[in-house]
């Protein structure tokens, strides 16, 4: 027997067992979730039904919806701004190539990891409980969450910089501050800004949802409309959200291209 077929046989065995394992896991999961085919179809049809009920959307709510949408934009904007500012010092501490102490940078990274475990929605729940319902809780939730996410990305940017210009500045006799200003900042600033803009895009989506737990923005309208099953209102809210998010997506992509 040729030696190759042993390897082939083992590969085949692995593939087949992976396949069978996946099927078993799938069946187990489906059973656990308690969905049988009939329910699935019934559920899908009622959802399709509801999409039908959303249109035509309730235009009388348009101005209200737009105002709330602007609130969500504000939450996303302020939250991203807060996160961008707070993330900078943390990123400098956490980056391994700036401070000599590796314990300090390890600590910085752990702080960032800890913040990043909390999705903004959960943070929003806590902030609503502490600061009361409204935009403040929302923007704080987005702000803190963004600090964690941006902090990690900023750290990556700092660790990736080209050290050549730094050597050149040091060789010419510049002091530490001048080295940072001439050689480091021009490298990291555009990256920081582009990263923040992308974060704003993501935060925009998150902010629309925060109102569902009382943290302001268009989610508030949605929450009430869903509670009372007023589907045409849900419809107009969804339309405004889709349009708003799309505008933000395109502007963000355009701006980011211009910067980098």
């Amino acid at each position, binding site marked *: 027997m040729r030696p190759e077929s042993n390897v082939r046989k083992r590969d085949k065995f692995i593939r087949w067992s992976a396949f069978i394992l996946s099927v078993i896991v799938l069946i187990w999961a489906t059973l656990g979730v308690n969905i049988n085919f009939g329910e699935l179809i019934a559920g899908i049809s009622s959802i399709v039904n509801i999409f039908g009920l959303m249109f035509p959307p309730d235009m009388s709510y348009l101005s209200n919806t737009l105002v709330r949408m602007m609130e969500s934009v504000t939450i996303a904007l302020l939250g991203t701004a807060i996160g961008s500012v707070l993330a900078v010092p943390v990123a400098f501490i956490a980056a391994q190539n700036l401070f000599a102490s590796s314990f300090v940078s390890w600590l910085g990274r752990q702080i960032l990891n800890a913040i990043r475990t909390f999705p903004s929605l959960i943070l929003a729940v806590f902030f609503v409980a502490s600061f009361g319902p409204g935009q403040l809780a929302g923007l704080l939730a987005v702000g803190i969450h963004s600090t964690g996410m941006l902090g990690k990305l900023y750290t990556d940017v700092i660790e990736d910089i*080209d050290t*050549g*210009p730094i*050597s*050149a*500045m*040091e*060789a*010419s*006799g*510049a*002091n530490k*501050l*001048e080295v940072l*200003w*001439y*050689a480091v900042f*021009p*490298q990291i600033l*555009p990256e920081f800004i582009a990263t923040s803009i992308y974060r704003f895009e993501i935060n925009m989506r998150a902010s629309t949802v925060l109102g569902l737990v009382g943290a302001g923005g268009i989610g508030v309208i949605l929450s009430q409309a869903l509670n009372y099953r007023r589907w045409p209102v849900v419809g107009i809210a969804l339309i405004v959200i889709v349009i708003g998010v799309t505008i933000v997506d395109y502007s963000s992509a355009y701006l980011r291209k211009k910067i980098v």
Partner: protein
Amino acid sequence: MSVLEYKNLSVTYPGGVEALKNVSFEIEKGEFIVVVGLSGAGKSTLLRATNRLVDATGGEVLFNNQDITKVNKRELRDIRSDIGMIFQSFNLIKRSSVFRNVMAGRASHLPTWRNLLGIYPEHDKDIVFNSLDRVNILEKAFARADELSGGQQQRVGIARALAQEPQVMLADEPVASLDPPTSHMVMKDLQNINRELGITVIVNLHFIDLAKEYGERIIGLNNGELVFDGPAEATDKETFEMIYGRSITAEEEIGRDSSVI
């Protein structure tokens, strides 16, 4: 008085590699020195020990009779501002303009607040423009550094070092990334600076034909030791083979291109 003196200079890197072993020689003001040797022979280490980008582990380096291995941070910055350096990979600040890159070389001569605010005196701006003019790249003064070709970027590097108004210019493999005609242009610029401005120039090269053509004095390193120190006219192929410890390959000659001046 010699401008630079190496006394038993030794550099051993943390991993145990002995990059320089007991190197001693003097350099007079205004000399044009080319350092040759195989990769890893210690050329780069020698240059970097001269402005303490790399610390000496033994011996002394004297700049204008001052031992740089023993000075404090401020004195070191003062000394470094009198020594210009250009690099194989140019080390320009890519997104900044050429002007800003050259002004960055002048940074050590200006108070920090001027650097941070970007408010530069006319005198210093003149020096920047003059430096750019001297390497014939004045018209690119406000272009972004990464828009330039390799040869142009290296000339900006030279301008940046010039803007320091240095006594000594260190060039670490300045032409290794450039094509032959551009390499000759850069070497001519260095020669020009040396002859017209009286700046002492030390260049690392691994192209022996360039070394012979532009160097006045050749320093040969082999495995961290000084194995040759003499005028360029006194060298021939055997000299270099001795320095390298083997026969010369085609890679060690840059040749010429028909478009050269």
